[in-house]
């Protein structure tokens, strides 16, 4: 089955979404990620959505949920690489992703996580 890989970098987990997100894939990712946060004792999660050019309310909520779940498991979530069109769509959908930290690219996102972890 198709899966989104989760990479570990020190105490952070790196998720790069490079395929078109569909609902089943998103649910699998939620499962995998929560399991990995616990198993790896991760302190931060970085989700790179720079290849994502279509979002709907489901995907938006899923990102929000992942952030909330990570927070419960004591890991901070940073969403990076959002495209302008995607940002506008999410705002128009009323999904402001409150409580999710964001950064322009992976580099800045990592810096943010490492600073928070220090």
């Amino acid at each position: 089955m198709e899966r989104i890989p989760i990479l570990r970098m020190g105490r952070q987990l790196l998720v790069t979404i490079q395929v078109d997100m569909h609902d089943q894939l998103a649910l699998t990712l939620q499962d995998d990620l929560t399991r990995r946060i616990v198993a790896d004792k991760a302190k931060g999660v970085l989700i790179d959505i720079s290849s994502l050019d279509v979002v709907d309310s489901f995907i938006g909520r899923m990102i929000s949920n992942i952030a909330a779940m990570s927070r419960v498991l004591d890991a901070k979530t940073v969403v990076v690489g959002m495209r302008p069109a995607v940002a506008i769509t999410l705002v128009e959908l009323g999904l402001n992703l409150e409580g999710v930290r964001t950064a322009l690219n992976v580099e800045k996102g990592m810096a943010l996580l490492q600073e928070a972890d220090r």
Partner: protein
Amino acid sequence: MKANEKSGLAGILRAHEAEILEEWQKEQSAGQPRRDQLNDAEIRAASREFLGGVVEALNASGAVDMRSDAWSKVRDLLAELSASRARQGFSPTETATFVFSLKRPLFGLLRKEFANDAQKLGDETWNATILIDQLGLFTAETFQKTREQVISRQQRELLELSTPVVALWDDILALPLIGTLDSGRTQVVMESLLERVVETGASIAIIDITGVPTVDTLVAQHLMKTVAAARLMGADCIISGIRPQIAQTIVHLGVDLSAVTTKASLADAFAVALDRVGARIVKNAAPA
């Protein structure tokens, strides 16, 4: 049934071309108040070419149907003429006069030609009327189309002009908004801001609303949307340039801006932004 009659019209036009041109020229000059922008030679050339096209089309198609292929040359000529007049700021009447002033010379000629044949005169007059009406309608339509193009181009240019995004410092962008914010403009503002965030990698954007005349709930909502979208891209927004009057309005309307940093002036906002990116501006020590 009408092939004979129509070729009659074409024949008359051809036979008396010079005469008609002369009369037409006079009519146009009389009905044309804006003599300064058109010279007689130009009118004459355009008229001759146009009349030639009409005769040719009448001969080729034998029917007065502006949509058929035979009339394409006439259509192009008319379109070019009315488009150029529309751009020069002529009124619809002034533009359509070109075609309608052909009526008097043409009808006069028909009357002379068929003085002894009332039946034929009626038929040909009818044909000529249809012809001129169609030409006139086409002219008006093209005129309007050109004007609409001009208007929409100006709107587009105004939109682009009114939403500049400037880089103030490494990592700091400023977006001075001038004029009313409606949803169409918000979209453009948002897009250009986000594009620039991606381009420059800026982490702070200052939205200056000094030039926004009124802030109502809708404008505030548009502002908040822009701020939210920028935040999703990892850029923090500061709203500056809030005039006293606007501060009062915002509070009276119950608009909640607590989620954003707001500053009274662009200078204050810039100071905050510099502080956040860890930069500092100091005055040179006074020379001894």
